[in-house]
């Protein structure tokens, strides 16, 4: 993956930049020692690494503003970082960039049950937002797999999803307002406890802008009353096509489960060997979960089971108690770990129209044989968000490149059938150069014009989202190497 060359002028003035940042912040908030900056050299896309110029860990919005003002004056690129769980390289530094980590900004600022929102600092982890309100019967809906570790800041940057967004939507549908610091240090308030934008919907474009428009330090999030209960059912089929038809029929019947998860044979075999969840050996496995009171759950599951039976399942198992429910989810939740036991893997998240599911799975199987690399599929079937896990050996020369080429072909296929490159992980550096597959130069130009307004010098989170060739003129014009 090509990254821009660091600006030698910035590298030369490192001492001055560090000392200016130290003056503005409390002791210990600036990390510049080479051994220590290594902790920030990569995120969860660990194949790519580069230690930053330095890292700063501010404790308030005012400090974030001070940092950005200094970096703006010095012409230094800034890479915002939540918890560093990005699978797309969204927080990968360049050697001339300052990493701005929000980890110390983790307070709950306000909980308001009558108006159903919580206001938090954005370094707070996703799961701990729910943790702050669950004893009072509420929860925060978006639930990315990394929710134990990932920060709200990163969720907003990537517009993160999760297993339950078929019913509750993704981050953008649950975000009411933000406090954001622009690159020049200006603090802006966008949205708030009210439900819609008063002018142009800036919040809508800030969410999912991958930290390239500003640094979000506080967020007002919608919280929802917890349902009375939930129950999963597990259904096995002899073919992907039939499982796909079953999903489509359930949706058409008017049931809206909170989650419809899909696993294919390679993935079932790997998780069964790893987690012993008691899954049947078949071509396709569905885990469908519904919510409500016991009576409501019975009503919905009866309909789902009736539809499932019409398609002749090889297995149909409804959880009778919490223990069985946990076992049904056990395999799904350990799927990534199980695949990791077999080999290194790359996880993609292209999204496709649900109707294209059988065709895309068949093509992925064919490509797997052509490339000679194994692949398992585990994904959110209700919304077409695929998660092919391509297995490769990081220690074998050329294997990573082969895996990336295979991954690129899968993503091209997703776009070809009417889908997109990424459903919830973000573009980052990983899918940056594939953007031209999905967008025309004019489409990309329109997006880059938004960045021109928020960050005219193109200093925030350099070399992400847009192909380097597309952004070359702008980066050259600002005189910033990144």
């Amino acid at each position: 993956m090509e990254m821009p060359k660091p600006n030698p002028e910035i590298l030369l003035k490192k001492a001055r930049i560090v000392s200016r940042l130290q003056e503005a912040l409390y002791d210990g908030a600036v990390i510049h020692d080479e051994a220590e900056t290594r902790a920030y050299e990569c995120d969860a896309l660990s194949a790519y690494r580069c230690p930053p110029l330095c890292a700063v860990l501010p404790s308030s919005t005012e400090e974030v503003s001070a940092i950005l003002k200094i970096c703006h004056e010095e012409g230094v690129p800034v890479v915002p970082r939540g918890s560093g769980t990005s699978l797309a390289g969204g927080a990968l530094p360049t050697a001339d960039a300052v990493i701005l980590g929000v980890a110390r900004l983790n307070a709950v600022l306000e909980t308001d049950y009558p108006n159903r929102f919580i206001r938090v600092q954005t370094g707070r982890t996703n799961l701990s937002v729910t943790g702050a309100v669950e004893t009072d019967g509420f929860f925060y809906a978006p639930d990315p797999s990394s929710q134990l570790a990932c920060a709200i800041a990163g969720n907003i940057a990537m517009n993160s999803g999760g297993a339950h967004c078929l019913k509750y939507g993704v981050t953008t549908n649950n975000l009411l307002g933000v406090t954001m610091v622009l690159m020049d240090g200006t603090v802006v308030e966008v949205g708030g406890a009210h439900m819609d934008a008063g002018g142009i919907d800036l919040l809508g474009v800030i969410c999912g802008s991958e930290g390239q428009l500003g640094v979000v330090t506080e967020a007002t999030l919608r919280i929802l009353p917890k349902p009375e209960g939930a129950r999963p059912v597990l259904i096995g089929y002899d073919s992907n096509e039939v499982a796909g038809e079953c999903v489509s029929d359930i949706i058409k019947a008017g049931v809206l489960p909170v989650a419809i998860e899909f696993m294919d044979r390679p993935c079932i075999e790997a998780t069964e060997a790893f987690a012993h969840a008691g899954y049947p050996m078949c071509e396709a496995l569905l885990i469908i979960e519904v919510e409500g009171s016991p009576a409501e759950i019975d009503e919905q599951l009866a309909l789902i089971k009736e539809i499932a039976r019409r398609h002749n399942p090889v297995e149909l198992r409804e959880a009778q108690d919490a223990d069985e429910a946990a076992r049904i989810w056990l395999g799904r939740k350990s799927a990534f770990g199980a695949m990791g036991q077999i080999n290194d893997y790359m996880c993609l998240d292209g999204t496709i129209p649900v109707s294209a599911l059988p065709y895309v799975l068949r093509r992925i199987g064919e490509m797997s044989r052509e490339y000679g690399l194994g692949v398992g599929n585990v994904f959110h079937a209700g919304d077409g968000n695929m998660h092919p896990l391509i297995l490769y050996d990081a220690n074998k020369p050329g294997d990573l490149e082969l895996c990336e080429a295979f991954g690129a072909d899968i993503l091209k296929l997703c776009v070809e059938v009417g889908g997109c490159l990424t459903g919830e992980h973000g573009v980052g550096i990983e899918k940056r150069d594939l953007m031209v597959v999905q967008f025309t130069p004019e489409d990309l130009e329109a997006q880059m014009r938004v960045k021109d307004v928020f960050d005219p010098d193109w200093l925030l989170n350099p070399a992400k989202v847009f192909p380097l060739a597309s952004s070359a003129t702008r980066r050259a014009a600002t005189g910033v190497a990144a």
Partner: protein
Amino acid sequence: MIRPASEEDLAGVVAGAKGPLSIQGGGTRGFADNAEGERLTTSGITGITLYEPGALTLVARAGTPVEEIRERLARDNQRLPFEPMDHRALLGTTGEPTIGGVVAANISGPRRVMVGAARDYALGLRFVDGRGMVIRNGGRVMKNVTGYDLVKLLSGSYGTLGILTEVSLKVLPKVAASATIVLGGLSDDRAVAAMAAALGSPFEVSGAAHDPGTGETLLRLEGFDESVRYRSERLAELLKTFAPSRMESDADVVAKLWAAIRDVTAFAGKEGDVWRLSVKPSDAPDLVGRSGAKQSLYDWGGGLVWLRCDDGTDLRARLAAFAGHATLIRANAQTRRGLGIFQPEPAPLARISAGLRAQFDPRGILNPGMMG
């Protein structure tokens, strides 16, 4: 009136425009009256281009009538979840509301409080910017974080960033049953508290409105038969401390009740300016008190307030600073010009919005002056 028949025609018209354009869909929402320029309508660019019920997705050209989409969805037992308002009764307009207008103005109804707004169901769109370039963003899949979300940016931008030519929407199944719990005689304060209690319960309330005119507070439940029955009983029990309630479970009656809330028909045909407030729900009763309005209506549990005021009332001055915003929906041309349609934004946000308009419409020809 310019009425292009295709996206390509429209792009040509915009590229060749010599002056400002005042853009409308069906012209039922009155917004085109607020912009100077030659009238242009997208009502000639029509047709549903894709509908996959099993994928909950519908794609339609911007000028497609909302009614046509509603009918098509109903044939497969589906609907637009965000329940867009029809402005015709309130504004005394005629014509056919279009799906492009719904998205361009982010028009949602009572169900917004539970399921989200029009912008939350817009998966993708095509538009013509102020240069006459055709731009595409988003797509037809439910989860998509590929690049910046211009779909949200354009939804609710009232044509000032670009003219929509096609929208792709997430739709949802229709429900089997619906019921409404009606509480009587609550003060505005108590009504908002009752609605907060209902919306904070696990019973999935899909509408929460209060009409001080009739003194009735309405709470809607939707879903499968058994489920609606169960939840409405539990909810009535929960709300016992506020007031005794009655239950309305006839589907037609319930539909009519909520269509009236959605379309603010209580204000129709009555004189005065109409304002729309978007606020923190618990602030609403105090703001209504300060407004001096002749009539009010609470929707979204208090998050949306409709006010009917004396002609020319400067409501924003009267309310002073508050969290949220006030939009002038109905007034004569002089008042609209004098007070502005939209609440002025704080300086840094106004600068960003103006910057975006300058980027997408460098000649300033798309609904100039409408949003600032």
